[in-house]
């Protein structure tokens, strides 16, 4: 569904992504792990059109349509089903929870469908329903993450990009979030997951890539990478 090759992205004068290439097949959950500053978030920004690569290809194929992510506007990319849930959640603090979710459904026109999707999200995250008319800024970190994911879901994503969903959250909350991610995967949503928390990411990933200094240095299934010595030493905190 997602095919990236030879991607070179610069931020200012710095060469952040160097010849990055990877794939995500339909229905898969692919994980991109790596240390801070490796370039993982930059990758997602390039995919959703917020950053333009200097060279390389990134193509999304869904429902018979092909979108060139390196050229299309973010609006077009989002309308084609690529939904990017950015780092730090980035919810609209002064809007209510319900309004945040409504913004998620911005690109959809069918009111009935949107309402149904909202109900689904409320079923998935009952706490959001409780807080529906409160300002989103008053939610806790974990609740905000749920709101961010709920918001992304309201867009009916074909390809969901999740940037560090566990960042700054308590372990118990992280478990809940990953449960939700697993459920989404079970529902057939294709997911590209970025995580510093390599353990949890590799556990649920079908396919995983390791990024170091802007390059993909390892790839394989989630399980195989979890057993890989280098990965274990660098990212899973297992002493050799």
């Amino acid at each position: 569904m997602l095919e990236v090759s030879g991607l070179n992205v610069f931020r200012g004068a710095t060469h952040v992504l160097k010849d990055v290439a990877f794939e995500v097949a339909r229905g898969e959950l692919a994980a991109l792990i790596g240390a801070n500053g490796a370039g993982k978030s930059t990758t997602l920004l390039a995919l959703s059109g917020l950053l333009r690569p200097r060279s390389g290809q990134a193509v999304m194929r869904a429902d018979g349509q092909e979108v060139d992510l390196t050229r299309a506007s973010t609006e077009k990319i989002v309308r084609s089903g690529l939904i990017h849930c950015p780092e730090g959640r980035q919810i609209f603090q002064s809007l209510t929870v319900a309004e945040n979710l409504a913004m998620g459904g911005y690109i959809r026109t069918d009111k009935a469908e949107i309402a149904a999707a909202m109900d689904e999200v409320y079923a998935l995250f009952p706490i959001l329903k409780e807080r529906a008319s409160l300002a989103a800024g008053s939610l806790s970190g974990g609740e905000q993450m749920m709101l961010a994911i709920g918001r992304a879901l309201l867009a009916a994503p074909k390809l969901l990009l999740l940037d560090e969903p566990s960042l700054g959250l308590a372990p118990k909350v992280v478990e809940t979030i990953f449960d939700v991610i697993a459920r989404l995967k079970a529902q057939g949503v294709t997911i590209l997951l970025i995580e510093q928390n390599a353990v949890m990411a590799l556990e649920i990933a079908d396919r995983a890539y390791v990024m170091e200094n802007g390059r993909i240095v390892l790839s394989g299934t989630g399980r195989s990478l979890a057993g890989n010595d280098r990965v274990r030493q660098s990212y899973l905190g297992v002493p050799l």
Partner: protein
Amino acid sequence: MSQYFFQQLVNGLSLGSLYALVAIGFSMIYGIVRLINFAHGDLVMIGAFSTLAMITLGVPWPLILVFVLAIGAMAGMVIESVAFRPIRGAPQVTGFIATLAVSIVIQNSALMLLTGQQRNFVFPAFMRQRISLGGVNAALTDLVIIGLTLVLITCLFFIVYRTRLGTAMRATAENLMAARLMGVAVNRTILAAFAIGSALAAVAGLFWGGKFGQIDPLLGFVPGLKAFVACVIGGVGSIGGAMLGGYILGLAEVLFVGLLPQELSGYRDAFVFLLLIVILLVKPSGLFVRHVEDRA
């Protein structure tokens, strides 16, 4: 209630209505692109002269109101796409200088076309009468201004808080990147904010002319700066705050002029800016603090 007091109240609310209209637009623009738009006041001038032109052409009044809104909206959109969009993302001060430059271009272009002389401008005769309300009376002009402003503001609040466009504007104002990721066409949303804000400022120009009777190409400077003061009073970035700030400023100004001896009434503008400086120091987030981020 004494006639004098009532008169001052009406004056204050009427002046406050003008300031509120301009301040709301100013605040919408600041909220969505973090720009102190120095050229906003000149839209008041554009509205006033458009009104004059239409009066001369014999356009009926209700239509004048509609056209002024449209002209203001278009002017605002042109200014945004030509002058401000190219420098979006530039440092704060660069943006401000650019708005200053745009203001100068507008003012001097108007001077070139219209010359600096004052033009007279009157509302139709029936507007200039006084209406009696249970023992006191007030100019119909003032009452109409107050009433129409309330209507316009209500429409505005409806748009901003109850429509998809309004939610998109608020989302974009809060977090542009996240709004883009929701598929919001950010450029068009920003244009819409400019259109609405500018339309309101243009209508304020219509009212301004009717209330003060005289207009000239440089009239925009003072309302523009006062709109900024009103926003600061009410809390920068908050539309409701801007509105309240506008009314408070109008009432305060009238109070100031009314209370002080005659010789000092010429200081009314200076007083307003002194007030600004005091507020910026004492309570920079404004008197009505909602969730406001300090972008300064």
